């Protein structure tokens, strides 16, 4: 019998990520990406947004296929509920980003993940969007994320994974820090 090294596999290609980090440190201009979305109004509060092309590594790129997302509002808002609300899409983005980060950091730290699930909750007082009370903001008054993670690691190591993922997360940054938004018409 020989001692076998435990192979950690979270399905993340760490060599590729590290390689990209090294290459992009040398050529920082290639690190500039542009993400795009195209939105079309359908009817009422229902819109459809498609995601396909983006720019990065110095050239036009595209996803394997086009992805379409319907956004709408639930029936209690007198809508037809053809999809998630836009604010729920924000939670989708945050959850997807943090969870991907946890997998990547775990792989880097050679921690095997067995299961990862999260519940996200965001509070909102809709007096803001309805214009009832100008002291109430339109957006969330806070977001709570709760992760349940089963991994071959100590509790503190798992906590550190989640903390590091927040530190490196694009959506966490977008949600927690101000971003200039410029909207033009025609």
């Amino acid at each position, binding site marked *: 019998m020989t001692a076998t090294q435990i192979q950690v596999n979270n399905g993340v290609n760490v060599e590729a990520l590290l390689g990209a980090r090294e290459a992009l440190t040398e050529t920082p201009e290639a690190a500039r990406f542009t993400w795009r979305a195209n939105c079309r109004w359908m009817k009422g509060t229902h819109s459809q947004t498609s995601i396909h092309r983006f720019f990065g590594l110095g050239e036009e790129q595209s996803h394997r296929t086009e992805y379409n997302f319907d956004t709408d509002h639930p029936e209690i808002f007198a809508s037809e509920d053809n999809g998630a609300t836009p604010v729920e899409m924000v939670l989708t983005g945050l959850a997807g980003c943090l969870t991907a980060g946890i997998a990547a950091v775990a792989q880097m730290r050679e921690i095997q993940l067995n299961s990862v699930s999260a519940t996200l909750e965001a509070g909102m007082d809709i007096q803001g969007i309805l214009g009832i009370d100008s002291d109430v903001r339109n957006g969330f008054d806070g977001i709570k994320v709760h992760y349940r993670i089963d991994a071959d690691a100590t509790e*503190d190591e798992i906590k550190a994974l989640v903390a590091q993922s927040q*530190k490196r997360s694009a959506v966490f940054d977008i949600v927690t*820090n101000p971003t200039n938004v410029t909207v033009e018409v025609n």
Partner: protein
Amino acid sequence: MHTTTVIIGAGHAGLAMSRCLTRRSIEHVILERGEVANSWKTERWDSLKLLTPNWQSRLPDYGYQGDDPDGYRTMPETVAFIERYADVISAPIQTHTKVTSVSRYNGGYAVATDQGDWECSSVVIASGACNIPQVPALASELPPGIDTFTPKTYRNPDQLAEGGVLVVGASASGTQIAEELQRSGRSVTLAVGEHIRAPRSYRGRDIEWWLDAAGVLDDRYDEVDDIARARKLPSLQLMGSPERRQIDLNSLTAIGVKLVGRLAGINGGKAQFSGSLNNHCAMSDLKMNRLLDTIDEWATSHGVDGEVDPSHRFEPTAVETSPQLAIDLRSGAIRTVIWATGYRPDHSWIDLPVFDRKGRIRHTGGVIDAPGMYLMGMPFQRRRKSAMIDGAGCDARELSAHLAGFLDRQAALMWNFGQVVNG
């Protein structure tokens, strides 16, 4: 004027190098823009004490000899300590001599100063890591009527107008200044980004004792995982006080300091703070506990568990559920902003292609990418302790050996060249 080596800067780092060159009989001069220990003398606030205990200022052939090894020096005491070192080693210092440029000349270097020019074969840059306060670009968005200071210009609370203070940055300087200003009766808000929490004392010993004994401060630049990251780490939240007081975010909230997230923007006169405060505090607590784990493991494996207090953990950092996300800077609530956002060195007078794309000197453990040029006193230059007074000795010993080797090779080359020319 001509010499073999020009050392720029007569602080502890330049003096340690001078001592090592003297031991090797390498002729040199130290050029100092002001006086010995100039930054310690002129660029620190009044109440500041060294963050390291007295015993931990070991320089080549010099160290603390008083009766309070565990105390922390005031700035005048620090200056006196370094001045005495300069005396003891008879350092060849030329004070009030500001270097205006260093360039290649005649196979060596030309060092231009406001007191005449020098030619030399090698140069040691020991002008400090903390010359220019690193104030973020968004500072220009501050509305008029708000006074600003940096730890370099701040001296004491009397300088400040009455009224609220926003301290930006929660490392050693920011936390100490926030505490002093809150105690002066002002209402202080502290903007907290990435920071490193550390206990002043642990298991009855100073944290610096543990870091020194366990070899953490001796971690080498060519052995750590990510040296670029290690060199960027903020300073530990520590202060030196006779009662060995603990300073951290909990001790600050206990006296009424209000914590907000990292200052992320100033928009229309409103300061906006990141919603990441909870994560920054959680990360810092986890990091501190990993350090304490390392210490505990070292204590056990080195059999000192019996000599020190039992292992324990500190209260996690308490953060409000919903920290404030914005402050209207036009409301009058904030009268003064302190930018405790770090420092960078000033190497603008070096006319050599030795900088990376972000303007930092490229070096490998203090060996600069120009023959015969060396750097001293940068964070994690060769070891974790490189920027500390206690770290100057090791780096000076190793780099002076490298420098001597360089001079030997150069002399051999010159000799060979002479043989060829003279046939």
